[in-house]
């Protein structure tokens, strides 16, 4: 006589068998003849890995191209079993994939791989981030000189920064598009500024000191103190160039002057 289980018990057992290859297939799972059906059950096991693996492949195309299809498949499956999604919204899945890659031993010969993955993850977030209209390029020129040091900014909701001590942007670009591959100078580290000012996500290499500058602005520091932080992080920091770069990227959506705000 079959020991009847509750729905909750059946699903717990089913879920465990999906996640753990060593777990037994639930006893109540049968084929049309009423007998055990391990091959039929394995379709579900496989669907889960295929669906979630495909989701990662879609979100990390450059990583996949760098390591090749077979390597990516195994790396993705290992990650899926270790860190399955906890939300049904799969566009959010893979936040921790770059960190996983950084400690995935077989990928250790490609130490820049996690940084490329980070760019792809941030790219995804930027793509789905809230829309906002960047300030016109002249907005900052309208702020009186005496107030400039104290202004703060609301940055574009799609803005992301990705740091790397490798030429991660160059490597990403070579593998995310059809530009021909060429020599890569590993002595150059590239931080990425990722913004979607309108429909398309744009990626730029951050100039020296720029990352500290943007991080400070993003955390609400005034222009004056953010500039000082940029300068102290890298002596090559060029404030004018950084401001021009951020305006050109559409990074600013609002200037806040003390109590008064200048939206456009």
């Amino acid at each position, binding site marked *: 006589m079959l020991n009847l289980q509750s729905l909750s018990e059946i699903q717990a057992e089913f879920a465990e068998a999906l996640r753990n290859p060593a777990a037994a297939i639930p006893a109540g799972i049968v084929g049309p003849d009423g007998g055990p*059906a391990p091959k039929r*059950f394995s379709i579900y096991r496989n669907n889960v890995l295929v669906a*979630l693996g495909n989701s990662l492949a879609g979100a990390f195309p450059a990583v996949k191209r760098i390591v090749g299809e077979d390597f990516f498949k195994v790396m993705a499956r290992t990650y899926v079993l270790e860190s399955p999604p906890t939300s049904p*919204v799969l566009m959010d899945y893979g936040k921790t994939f770059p960190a996983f890659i950084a400690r995935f031993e077989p990928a250790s010969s490609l130490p820049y791989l996690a940084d490329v993955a980070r760019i792809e993850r941030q790219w995804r977030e930027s793509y789905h981030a809230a829309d906002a209209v960047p300030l016109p390029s002249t907005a900052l020129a309208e702020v009186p000189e005496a107030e400039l040091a104290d202004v703060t900014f609301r940055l574009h909701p799609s803005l992301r920064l990705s740091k790397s001590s490798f030429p991660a942007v160059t490597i990403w670009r070579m593998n995310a598009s059809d530009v021909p591959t060429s020599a890569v100078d590993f002595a150059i580290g590239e931080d990425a500024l990722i913004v979607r000012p309108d429909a398309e996500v744009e990626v730029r290499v951050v100039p020296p000191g720029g990352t500290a500058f943007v991080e400070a602005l993003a955390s609400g520091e005034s222009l004056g103190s953010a500039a000082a932080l940029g300068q102290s992080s890298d002596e090559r920091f060029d404030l004018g160039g950084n401001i021009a770069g951020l305006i050109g990227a559409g990074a600013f959506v609002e200037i806040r002057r003390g109590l008064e705000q200048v939206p456009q």
Partner: protein
Amino acid sequence: MSQQSTMPLQSTKPDAIPARVGVGLKPEHYDAILTERPDVGWFEVHAENYMGAGGPPHRYLTAIREQYPLSLHGVGLSIGAARPLDRDHLKRLKALNERYQPGLFSEHLAWSTHDSVFFSDLLPLPYDEESVRRVADHVDEVQDTVGRRMLLENPSTYVAFAESTIGEIEFLTEVATRTGCGLLLDVNNVHVSCTNQRWNAIDYLDRFPMQHVGEIHMAGYAPSKDDHGDPLLIDAHDRPADPVVVELYDHALSRCGPIPTLVEWDNDVPDWPTLFAEARRVESVLTRARRDEDAELAVAV
């Protein structure tokens, strides 16, 4: 694409889905659809792919929604789970319904989440009084929260449960009766499940409670083999609907009359002309059914 409004649509009433063929909207076809404005009755999207805060998906969907009626099809709510529904996800579904005012809103008779792990697959459940009660409670909760009627789709299954005490049709009928929800009849799923479970598909359709059906799905399957080397069909959505499935569709229409019908093609997505041709092929069956019905009405009058 140019800067467009991403504000919610101003219309307050959903545009009803016509009894025509609609197409599952894929990003690969956004531009072709907006440029060519093909004669398609309506489009359907997977709700979860439009749950980001902003960006191109919403822009495209807004632009397409301005031209066509829209149906919203959830693929991740896990209505068949023993555990409570994900409240945050329900809120997201409600927000999407409010934003796009779809003419139809549907989900699956399946579960996909357990202990907060999302499996991204439509998993089967045993059919008995406990699971009927659970699913009916969840459908009630969805309809109360989202504030509208939903359709529940019959699944493709590969296994059965020794625990089941009632049939799939009895199960679906009972849930529809208890909750007032409608049903989404996936004819490809009927063929896949009937083949896999060794049921008779015509008999299945003859017993299906057509009075609750608000939408039909058509898709292609991939053939495989089970543990004994016997046929096992996989719900792959990677090719045109099989001729057998088109015949079953024709049979279903003879029972339920013209019903909004979706053509789904989610894997190995073809170019737009190929998908459009598949939609036209299915539409020809639907048009013939409509003519037959009109003729019957004329005779009756």
